[in-house]
């Protein structure tokens, strides 16, 4: 299913539900959007044309998974995988509201089944597997479905010997799935271990914001780590840290630029150049090097 079909089917689905849904991301709602950073009033349509980057101050607006795919993948080449997976409620979780209700609410707001879309596509002609998170769905939190879809696309890429690109944007693990959500950190990292042992390329893209369990698993395991300008990325949240150390953190703490300075990402790439850089990196690591790597060495048998 390509993007066009995807939008068409989503539209149909909405009409069937006879509910007037708002558009996927808030900035669509109005003709004008005020820049979060420089406060400039911008034409929403122009902002969109500029890949949701403020033309005045280069602020990178948060974007949804489908928009990201639209920006990165060659038109008409994206094929979604595992689109039908949806969350269960293994703990029958209820806080001030039930998890089931919150799920429905999240889907209504985002128009998505879950916080990640995975699939296969071409980037300037280079085949790749993609997983793109959407912060707009349940704060991009990782429950069983996100973990499963990331693991599946990783396994798919391993089998097809394709490069893997995961674009992260997440508040962390999904508490409503309790211990299962924590275990997704191990599940995705384990899948990436086998992928890496096969000698394949994984590029991790960190976008605003990426925190908690997602950062502490697949988002930090890239052969190459790319962050979007200004994106806030970390393990613990700013407030938690300030409470712990009882002091104010520097203004640029946990920004992409701060991470670059502290050796955590290879590069900070502005959105307009992301696609071409990805294509460059895929080509650099691919052609001429296609021979599969030997299996990792067998260690000695365990002691008795």
């Amino acid at each position, binding site marked *: 299913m390509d993007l066009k079909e995807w939008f068409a089917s989503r539209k149909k689905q909405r009409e069937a539900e006879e509910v007037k849904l708002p558009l996927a991301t808030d900035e669509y709602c109005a003709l004008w959007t005020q820049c979060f950073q420089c406060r400039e009033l911008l034409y929403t349509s122009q902002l969109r044309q500029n890949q949701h980057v403020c033309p005045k101050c280069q602020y990178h607006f948060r974007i949804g998974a489908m928009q990201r795919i639209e920006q990165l993948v060659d038109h008409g080449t994206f094929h979604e995988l595992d689109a039908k*997976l949806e969350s269960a409620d293994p703990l029958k979780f209820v806080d001030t509201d039930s998890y089931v209700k919150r799920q429905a609410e999240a889907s209504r707001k985002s128009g998505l089944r879950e916080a990640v879309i995975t699939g296969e596509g071409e980037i300037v002609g280079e085949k790749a597997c993609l997983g793109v998170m959407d912060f707009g769905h349940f704060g991009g939190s990782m429950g*069983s479905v996100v973990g499963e879809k990331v693991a599946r696309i990783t396994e798919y890429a391993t089998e097809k010997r394709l490069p893997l690109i995961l674009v992260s944007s997440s508040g962390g693990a999904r508490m409503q799935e*309790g211990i299962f959500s*924590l275990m997704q950190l*191990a599940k995705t*990292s384990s899948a990436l271990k086998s992928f890496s042992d096969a000698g394949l390329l994984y590029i991790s893209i960190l976008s605003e914001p990426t925190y908690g*369990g997602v950062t502490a698993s697949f988002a930090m395991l890239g052969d190459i780590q790319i962050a979007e300008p200004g994106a806030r990325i970390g393990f613990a949240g700013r407030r938690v840290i300030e409470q712990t150390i009882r002091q104010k953190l520097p203004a640029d703490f946990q920004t992409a630029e701060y991470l670059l300075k502290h050796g955590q990402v290879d590069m900070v790439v502005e959105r307009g150049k992301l696609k071409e850089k990805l294509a460059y990196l895929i080509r650099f690591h691919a052609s001429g090097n296609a021979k599969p790597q030997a299996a990792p060495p067998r*260690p000695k*048998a*365990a002691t008795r």
Partner: protein
Amino acid sequence: MTDKKAIPLEFEKPLELLAQQIEALQKQLVDHPELESDISHLKKQYENLRRSLYSNLSASDHLAIARHPQRPYTRDYFARWDPNWMEMHGDRKGMDDPAMVTGLLHLGDHKVVVVGTEKGRSLRDKQQCNFGMPQPEGYRKALRLFKHAEKFGLPVVTLIDTPGAYPGMAAEEHNQAEAIAVNLFELAGLKVPVIAIVTGEGGSGGALAVGVANRILMMEHSVYSVISPEGCASILWRSADKRDDAAKAMKITAREILDLGVIDEVIEEPLGGAHHDYDLAAQNAKKAVIKQLEKMLAMSGDDVRADRQKKFRDMGQFKEAAV
């Protein structure tokens, strides 16, 4: 540790009152021998209440026991498993995080590499251990020992008792997230058996970073959760006071997590909790680990790795929509 010295927990208050009554009567026993039957009755009541209390613990009660200040810590287990165990220090790159204890240990007839988070007993120890919250360097120290184990074909046993990874400024600068992620990644690839025991608090990614094991065991009153109940309550209920609700909703106790199929075994604790008898707790844990370990030692390295990867591959519950 004997019962007398154990600090009672909130839910144990009724027991404590009964014990005080019994003690008071016993002092009068010489002058009033007729109290004998009353005392005997009260003692029976005490035993019944104790059993009843401990067979109906709430999630919060387990949490309280798991966090009991006298709970045996990682060093207490290691010292009892092998008084001659040899500690190994440091990440080789600038730090030896005392919140992560690592070493070589004889476990019965087996030689194993041990790794565990440590809360620290004295106030000074606790501060140095950040109350059991490792720095990135602590996870990298653990990783160094995992690789050591792999090189020499030694099984790994990890103990987990941590509120989570330390949320500090330097920890973020030194890439706490990467330290955890790399451990998950590398643990997944080990070809030596890994057995993990949650002995107290299994707190979030900071616990899992030494918990990607072939077999995961939990002490009876330990807890394991994706976020602390306080953290969960303050986010979802917008009030940390709702901790007990959050603890219940998240299913954090050993029995519940066993029922969810995430762990493999619950290790029985001395009545009242492991802090009432360190030796017995350590012995129970040792037996359980050896039993699990011996099952794995017949497997090839590749099978051991595949077994671990499959375990985590299968974790999670979801549905597949029709359309």
